[in-house]
């Protein structure tokens, strides 16, 4: 258990896994410590690079000074996303889209959501108005109401299939079975659906979504696309599993379900961390550490009544000082000030000088001023900073 690694990544979300995989590719020994499954599992699985603009890269260049995207050179952002596309293609959940251009997909409410890269199962989700869209739902399925979609799109129809199980995960597991797919395809052919696209909640399989998607298209001769659902979200699970398995295949070690109990520091160097285990203290040592614990929802930051602190290393956190200014009046309005909270880093993704852990690198939404909700840049920022921090870390280890 006294493992010693080149790099130890704390946090197993998008940014942590991206960093870990990047380091593995560079031939480093890596371990990932995670308290549990990340927020990625609950996400739509789509990669939002920067919403609210048509050209994400141009939008990034116009972001206010201090945003973490600013620490990553444009070439590196592009490289990071190409790297991501390669990994997901290897993991048999290929993504469509280009970082140069945003696209819009249909949400379970029938509204449109801007995003950038989407799984192939959502490739045809772009609604170009007027075209017929047929919505398929499943009997007893909660949290997916075709009526919402039909109210907002013009030319639609709907049918309901009885899959014998009423959870998205249960239905997805059914789709893994070939006989079930045949029954489903036959049923679709019997529905006499007018020409146009067919959409269904994201339930096309857990492990082999690509082959299920292709198989359905082949059996019915129709164009399908998935609509991401509320959690539990299959596209999120697929994305997480793909990244996790990519890491395992590259020899990365996982300490899953493990919380950090204490950190061993020697001057400006972090030597190791110990994990909360029921008995003996478990130590994980590393030459370098990457902190990718995320923001409030992932538990990387914790807000008290008037203060915000960082939960693993107790790094100094930047946050708007007076609680009065933390929130906007309207909960649903974008850009609550508290979103700016995080750890300030320098251009090499180390925490700012006065903390000065030489072998610590940060990535993802724990970095101050990332404002992921405001800018709509969650996964994109995670990929870009994860990749860049790993590069910086790699240079340090050498």
């Amino acid at each position, binding site marked *: 258990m006294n493992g010693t690694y080149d790099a130890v990544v704390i946090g197993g979300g998008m940014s942590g896994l991206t960093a870990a995989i990047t380091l593995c590719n560079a031939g480093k020994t890596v371990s990932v410590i995670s308290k549990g499954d990340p927020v990625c599992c609950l996400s739509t699985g789509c990669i939002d690079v920067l919403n609210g603009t048509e050209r994400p890269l141009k939008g990034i260049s116009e972001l206010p000074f201090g945003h973490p995207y600013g620490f990553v050179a444009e070439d590196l952002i592009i490289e990071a996303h190409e790297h991501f596309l390669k990994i997901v293609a290897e993991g048999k959940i290929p993504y469509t889209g280009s970082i140069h251009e945003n696209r819009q997909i249909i949400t379970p409410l029938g509204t449109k959501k801007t995003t950038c890269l989407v799984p192939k199962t959502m490739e045809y989700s772009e609604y170009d108005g007027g075209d017929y869209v047929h919505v398929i739902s499943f009997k007893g399925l909660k949290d997916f109401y075709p009526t919402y979609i039909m109210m907002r799109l013009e030319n639609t129809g709907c049918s309901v299939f009885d899959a014998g199980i009423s959870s998205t995960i249960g239905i997805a597991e059914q789709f893994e079975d070939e006989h079930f797919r045949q029954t489903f395809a036959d049923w679709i052919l019997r529905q006499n659906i007018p020409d146009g696209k067919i959409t269904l909640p994201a339930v096309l399989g857990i492990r082999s979504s690509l082959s299920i998607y292709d198989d359905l298209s082949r059996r019915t001769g129709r164009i399908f696309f998935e609509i991401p659902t509320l959690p539990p979200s299959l596209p999120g699970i697929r994305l997480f599993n793909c990244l996790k398995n990519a890491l395992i295949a590259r020899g990365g070690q996982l300490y899953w379900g493990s919380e950090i109990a204490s950190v061993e520091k020697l001057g400006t160097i972090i030597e190791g961390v110990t994990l909360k285990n029921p*008995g003996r203290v478990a130590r994980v040592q590393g030459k370098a550490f990457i902190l990718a614990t995320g923001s409030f929802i992932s538990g990387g930051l914790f807000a008290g009544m008037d203060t915000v602190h960082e939960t693993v290393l107790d790094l100094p956190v930047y946050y708007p000082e007076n609680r009065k200014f933390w929130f906007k009046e309207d909960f649903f309005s974008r850009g609550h000030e508290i979103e700016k909270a995080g750890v300030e880093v320098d251009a090499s993704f180390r925490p700012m000088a006065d903390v000065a852990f030489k072998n610590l690198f940060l990535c993802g939404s724990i970095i101050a001023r990332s404002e992921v909700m405001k800018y709509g840049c969650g996964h994109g920022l995670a990929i870009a900073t994860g990749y860049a921090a790993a590069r910086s870390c790699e240079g340090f280890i050498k």
Partner: protein
Amino acid sequence: MNFDFQHCIRCTVCLENCPVFRVNPDFPGPKQSGPDSQRFRFDGETSVDQWIVLCSQCKRCEVACPYGANPADIILREQLDYGRKHCRSLVNRLFSNVYLLGKLISLIAPIVNKLISIKFIRRIMIFSGISDYLVLPKYRFHTIKRSWPWKGSRKSKRRVVFFYGCYLNYNRPDIGRKIRDLFSSMGFRVVLPRQVCCGLPALGNGDSATARRMAKRNASILVKYIDKGYDVVYSCTSCGLMMTKGYQGILEIESGKKIAENTYNIHEYLLKLIDEGFLDLEFKAVEAKIAYHIPCHLRALGIGYPAVMLFKHIPGLEINVLDDSCCGLAGTYGFRKKNQETSYKLGVIASKALKETGADFIMADCGACRLQLSQLSGMPARDPAEILFDSLKSTMNL
């Protein structure tokens, strides 16, 4: 009263990881049967609990939960409560005492092995609630217990208690002996003291009294050795989980903490000794392609995947690590007729993934996993210790 449930934010990460929820529509998943229902149990209100027994206690939800709500623990406590309030079925009573059963059967092993294959006897077994989709494991007369209880010099610096567990003892004593011989040839003094079942099957069948009795018995024996400077080593991951987490947790055994601090997984232990410089092993090549099925309880131990780390030293091995699926058998869970369908479906899912790797054989730390997966996939299944033995036998004169 356990207040862990208050940590739950209902994010559904546990649902995403629950194997039973995927294939059994009757089970509402760990969120609803764990933290959600606990709110009602709190004030003595009766919650609808009959589905509580459908949980297989694989602990995947516990590993996945990022907020420390411990759904599996909440459910287990409720299962025990259910066991106390309801009349437990014959099969539950039988399986709580798998240890005694094994003890009896091993005495007349050749006869029982014959009897089990007779159709009429099978029918009686099915009638009493034992599932019939698996061929029951063969019992052995020459159990580990009846063989040499210690090996190696009294003067050895490393002294080890080997906790072999019921499956190795009654069904695969050959693996137990290999481990004993490996240890002694490494210069350890190995003792195999009198020991009873770890208590996990009793807990799984709702019998906390029996479980506690067994745990106390083991604890009194193990503590005596630990005080004399022995380390406890286990090879069965479920026994290990029970001894490190269960004894000091749910069973509240006094010396539980001491046992947890001195108990090691076999591969974790060897890695530790290699790190400490105590061992310098010369691994010989084993030419094989292995599909390594990670048992759920190994994940729950929070020690990473030590066999993967250790086997990096063995030349010629190609290991595919698969940790996304539960084998479905979950100890005695799948041997109960009521759970047969769930277990079978999960087993098919897991073995399909293993077959797709194109490996020569399956490797798994847990005897139950091996039993289920080798029968459902038709591939041979081996214990990691056997591979280790193969790699070391020529250099260690075994």
